[in-house]
């Protein structure tokens, strides 16, 4: 080790500001996800497997499958989101990175929002993009595809935000996984209702617009309020 005995530091301390902090946070999360790899594929595999189970468990009859497809795809995507949540803060909690985030002069809710954004980008968005493919397996009528894609893209963002609250509250608990589902699933119900409702409405020749607008409203509310609850949850989990 070389002795920098002058007591001075290398950097002069040029401030990067909030946006720079967010960009750094997003880039870090993307890098970690890329190195781990599995995080990106696992929810998609889960979705595909669950969707495959239903025709085997219920009936392969197209008419029947078509009638349950919107709800089925939505429930499966919701569960896939839920599964991916458990690890959202766990790694950062264990290695002490979360502590550094808490002690950053940058506002914690915004840093959390950046983290949740990456979670959605790598989990929710791929699910939304793949769900139409699986819709083919379930004989989803043609009018439903666009609504399915849009409702999932909007809805999974809300799911990420709400789920992150639960993940933040349970990150310090030894077996938080099951508890996390118990806390989060009741809060997911409105998103499920409006999401599946949008697809159903589109299939039945109605307008998917109102349901999508409601999903958008939920997302707006979640973006405005959830980061503060997530930040509060993390502070409690770390500091008691």
């Amino acid at each position: 080790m070389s002795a920098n005995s002058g007591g001075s530091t290398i950097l002069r301390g040029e401030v990067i500001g909030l946006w720079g902090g967010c960009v750094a946070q997003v880039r870090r999360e993307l890098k970690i996800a890329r190195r781990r790899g599995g995080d990106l594929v696992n929810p998609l595999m889960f979705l595909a497997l669950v969707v495959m189970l239903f025709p085997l468990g219920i009936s392969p009859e197209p008419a029947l499958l078509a009638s349950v497809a919107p709800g089925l795809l939505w429930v499966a995507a919701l569960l896939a989101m839920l599964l991916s949540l458990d690890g959202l803060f766990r790694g950062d909690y264990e290695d002490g990175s979360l502590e550094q985030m808490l002690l950053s002069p940058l506002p914690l809710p915004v840093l959390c929002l950046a983290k949740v954004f990456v979670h959605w980008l790598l989990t929710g968005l791929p699910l939304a993009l793949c769900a139409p493919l699986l819709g083919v397996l379930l004989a989803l009528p043609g009018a439903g595809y666009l609504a399915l894609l849009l409702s999932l893209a909007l809805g999974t963002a809300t799911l990420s935000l709400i789920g992150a609250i639960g993940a933040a509250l349970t990150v310090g608990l030894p077996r938080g996984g099951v508890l996390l589902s118990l806390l989060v699933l009741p809060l997911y119900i409105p998103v499920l209702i409006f999401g599946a409702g949008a697809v159903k409405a589109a299939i039945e020749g109605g307008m998917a617009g109102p349901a999508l607008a409601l999903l958008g409203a939920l997302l707006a509310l979640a973006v405005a309020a959830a980061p503060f609850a997530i930040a509060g949850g993390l502070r409690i989990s770390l500091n008691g």
Partner: protein
Amino acid sequence: MAVKVSLRANRLACERDDRWLFRSLDLRVEDGHILRIEGANGSGKTTLLKLLTGQLPPTEGRIEWHGEPLAASREAFLSQLLYVGHAPGVSAALTAQENLAWAAAMAGVRAPDLDLERALEAVGLAGFEDIPARQLSAGQQRRVALARLELIPRPLWILDEPFTAIDREGVAWLEQRLLAHGDAGGAVVMTTHHTFHANGRVDSLLLGEAA
């Protein structure tokens, strides 16, 4: 020269889970101070650091940063603070350099690659820039965390057990680094059982006498 560090705690008391960890604790940290907090396990060392970094509100008493209550000057305080915790804050999936770059960003300062390399070199990790942290030993991960001391300019350092997991050479370096920081007008607060060679330079605070 303006005073850089002025952290005062008056009649501090902390109650956790219906148990008093300490009561009426007075403490002053100013430019050039190096303060070592000692105490048995469970005497509230880490909790005291959480109070001093503004993570937990004290049950009684007040903490002031430049005469203002800590809670009111949060952002100003945190932009003068460098904290290295018990866990190093080094992500296993990232390389040494990426970890350090992120730490600088969280501190809110810009860090060019060249400076990151120089900081890693200063903690003896030259050539390890692109090695993922999971392949580094515990001591090397610790050094990645301590490279923040070299890199990020902050007058107040608060360190939780900084001497754990590093070898003898690292301990000597860290001791020098802490003293140099104090001589340059910075301040250090740390929990440790390590005894300094230049012991006269270091103030000590013993927790848990009452218990």
